[in-house]
């Protein structure tokens, strides 16, 4: 991998409609480490991940993403360093799985080879449905497609929000494999989950009560 990303959370606080979600979270995540975020529903796990992705603003405090442990990454170039698997990540229904990945890669500023996209689709078990519109996909298949996108973009920071939701046993194993492999290639991973098994990857933990 060309780059690695260090994530620093500095006194991150978030209010939502005057309700305090979390307060003064400070953490530093190094490349190849996994940070798990746990907590009951509504505790702000997804919000914290969205804040790190730059889609949501903090109420106070800040997030520093550093490329190769020194240069600060500006908000406009964040997209190139981050991959986000989230329940809110929605694909274009009238486009096929292949077209979706091709388009999102191009929109984020990179052109992927067709074989590479197909290989990634095959890796997540969607090679048979690559040229079918996403509207015909089941929720589990859409979840798999998010991982195919992640493999194509190959970003140095993965944000995974409930990554194995809607997946069958084989799908869960696939996700576990992907996370394991990514960590050995010094990808930084931030994982919001309530599954005990996934929490085991953690080098560091945040528990939002």
């Amino acid at each position, binding site marked *: 991998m060309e780059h690695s990303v260090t994530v620093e959370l500095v006194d991150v606080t978030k209010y939502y409609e*005057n*309700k305090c979600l979390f307060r003064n979270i400070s953490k530093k995540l190094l490349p190849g480490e996994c940070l798990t975020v746990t907590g009951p529903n509504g505790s702000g796990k997804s919000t914290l991940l969205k804040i790190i992705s730059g889609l949501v603003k903090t109420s106070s405090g800040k997030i520093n993403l550093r490329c190769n442990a020194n240069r600060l990454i500006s908000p406009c170039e964040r997209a190139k360093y981050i991959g986000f698997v989230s329940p809110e990540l929605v694909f274009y229904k009238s486009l096929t799985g292949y077209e979706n990945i091709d388009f999102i890669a191009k929109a984020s500023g990179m052109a992927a080879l067709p074989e590479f996209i197909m290989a990634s689709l095959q890796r997540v078990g969607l090679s048979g449905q690559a040229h079918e519109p996403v509207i015909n996909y089941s929720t589990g298949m859409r979840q798999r497609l998010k991982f195919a996108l992640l493999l194509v973009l190959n970003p140095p920071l993965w944000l995974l929000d409930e990554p194995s939701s809607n997946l069958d046993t084989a799908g869960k194993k696939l996700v576990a494999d992907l996370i394991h492999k990514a960590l050995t290639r010094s990808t930084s991973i931030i994982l919001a989950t309530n599954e005990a098994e996934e929490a085991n990857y953690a080098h560091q933990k945040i528990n939002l009560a």
Partner: protein
Amino acid sequence: MLNHRISNIITALAAVGVIYAVFFIVPPVEGLGEKVRIVFFHIPAAWISVMAFVLSALWALRYLNTHQIEYDRKSATAAGLGFFFCLLATISGALFAKITWGAYWNWDPRQTTIFILLLLYGASFALRTAIHDIDQRAKISSAYSLLSIVVMPFLVFVIPRYYSSLHPSPVINSAAKIAMDPVMLYTLIAALLVASALFRQLFIYYIERTRRRDLAQKDSPEGGGRL
């Protein structure tokens, strides 16, 4: 605040002075007679509505660069007051038009311009009220305010070319000569100053009020009262 109270009193006294001057010192004008007095309310109101528009855009720009909600509050307050003065200018202008030209409204270039200003103010309020999230609201209405100030010069350029105007030429006309009786001129300048001071006092008052309200909202949920 004691300071604010003192400047309130000074503004009020000055306003009384100007009103006295307008009604008892300024001589009736040839051709317009007593009707001329309405000008001393109309011009300052129009002036403030344009100034508030520019101020609102400047604060909008500062908000976008700093993301401090304080600037958005200023931008919104300036726009609110600007709307009020714009309404006053439109009404006083229509009255003046009626008594001098016989019709309240005839899409005179300046009437069109002020009407569009009124529309822009109205549109930005409609936009504001449709967004709930504070940061989102501030960001979007700031962008709208800046976009409208970019478009405004085009209006000033385009409108007078398509309609002939009955509106008296501006006080300081193109030859940069001041064609006005000195007493009237000084009264007008005083009226402009008083209107600006009035705007400033109202502005400070409303900023303080919204700031207090926002603070009260922010503190209350800590005590457990979340609703």
